């Protein structure tokens, strides 16, 4: 399987990358881990005349905790994120999603930024990041902007990213003291699986009364982008966590989603599994919050 021909660029910093991109106009593709781009090029779904590698840009590999947030570079690999102690401790659902992407071999190449930019409805990274309220930084030569990940993802393969822009960083706030999250992915097998349904939940509790102060339930593979189950979130806020409440939230989430029938699963099955995964990820979130209180 041969790759189409292309010119290869390997800039060593972001400014240079922006200039290269601006100069090449639209017939260029950014290469991060290559686990999507190279495959799509081999299948001739894409054949850009120019490929710009991000591999030699140290800024895209940074991870910084500053006060109340964590900012990390878009070119960190899934394996690096899954093994990061800081992420496993404070953003466990993100580490879990990173560790369930692809295979161990893929995880050594695939990057978090690439996973976001590819914008597949069943992708692993967007879910916990949406549950944690992540922002992404988009940079081009004329400046940069931070946008909510929720606003960034528009549809299958569709994002806010302009042709001359690079997703450079992702930022998540530090979780409040009594909070927790959970991520689950349902597939037919454990590895190299595209989710039938995936769900991430986040709960933040009041210190004293243990009522739910904030809740986010994010559903994957049941709409054209990952979506928030807003009525499930509404059902949770202000209540005390309990199995009965999580059951109710699961039912609400099943009503919130808009799955389709395809060769992986029927819409009915997906809806039923949204209910189960919502319940279970909420229980995971409650358990983590409990361990932190």
């Amino acid at each position: 399987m041969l790759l189409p021909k292309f010119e290869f660029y390997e800039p060593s910093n972001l400014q240079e990358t922006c200039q290269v991109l601006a100069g090449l106009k639209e017939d260029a593709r950014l290469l991060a881990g290559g686990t999507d781009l190279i495959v799509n090029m081999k299948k001739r779904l894409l054949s850009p005349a120019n490929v710009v590698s991000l591999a030699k840009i140290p800024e895209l590999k940074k991870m910084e905790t500053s006060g109340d947030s964590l900012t990390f570079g878009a070119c960190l690999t899934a394996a690096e994120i899954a093994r990061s102690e800081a992420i496993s401790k404070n953003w466990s659902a993100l580490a879990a999603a990173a560790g369930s992407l692809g295979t161990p071999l893929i995880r050594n190449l695939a990057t978090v930024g690439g996973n976001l930019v590819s914008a597949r409805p069943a992708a692993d990274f967007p879910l916990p990041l949406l549950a944690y309220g992540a922002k992404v930084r988009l940079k081009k030569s004329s400046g940069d902007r931070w946008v909510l990940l929720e606003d960034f993802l528009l549809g299958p393969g569709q994002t806010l990213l302009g042709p001359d822009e690079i997703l450079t960083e992702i930022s998540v706030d530090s979780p409040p003291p009594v909070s927790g999250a959970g991520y689950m992915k349902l597939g037919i097998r454990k590895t190299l699986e595209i989710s039938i349904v995936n769900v991430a939940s986040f709960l933040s509790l009041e210190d004293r009364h243990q009522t739910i102060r904030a809740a986010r339930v994010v559903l994957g593979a049941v709409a054209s982008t990952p979506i928030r189950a807003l009525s499930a979130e509404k059902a949770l806020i202000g209540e005390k966590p309990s199995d009965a409440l999580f059951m109710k939230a699961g039912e609400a989430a099943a009503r919130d989603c808009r799955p389709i029938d395809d060769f992986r699963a029927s819409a009915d099955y997906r809806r039923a599994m949204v209910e189960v995964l919502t319940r279970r990820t909420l229980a995971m979130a409650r358990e983590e919050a409990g361990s932190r209180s």
Partner: protein
Amino acid sequence: MKEGPMKKLISLIVNDRVYELAVDPNVTLVDLLRDQLGLTGTKKGCEVGDCGSCTVIMDGKPVNSCLVLAVQAHGKSILTIEGLETHEGLHPIQEAFVEKGAIQCGFCTPGMILSAKSLLDRKADPDEAEIRSAVSGNLCRCTGYQKIIEAVQAAAERMQKTQRE
């Protein structure tokens, strides 16, 4: 005639040997290894990152060499299956694969062994779940997984014993 994209000069280490080469940008690492360096121990199966038969260890990490461009291997150190054997003979993982009957057709074996090596480099005494997870990106179509797991366990024991001696 229209000229194609320029070749790029790269320098990389493969199995402790330095190579300096001119490569086309659209050549993948697996093709460089097999076609230009003659290292055909690295296999080509699916060519899209699904099967793991092209596994090599790049700067200490196992990766699908069908998804890495040869130009991206510039400055990197690559270990292929050919780099495991020493003048003392086969690597203990290779020996264990032979002894335990973990090889049937052999096509997945180089990738399996490199994934296993990368696990054992990181963790000398992995449990069964860790072994299964470590080789989960390597498909065996002869359904020989059980013996592969047993071979990795045997190799781990042997390597720990050698280290103690």
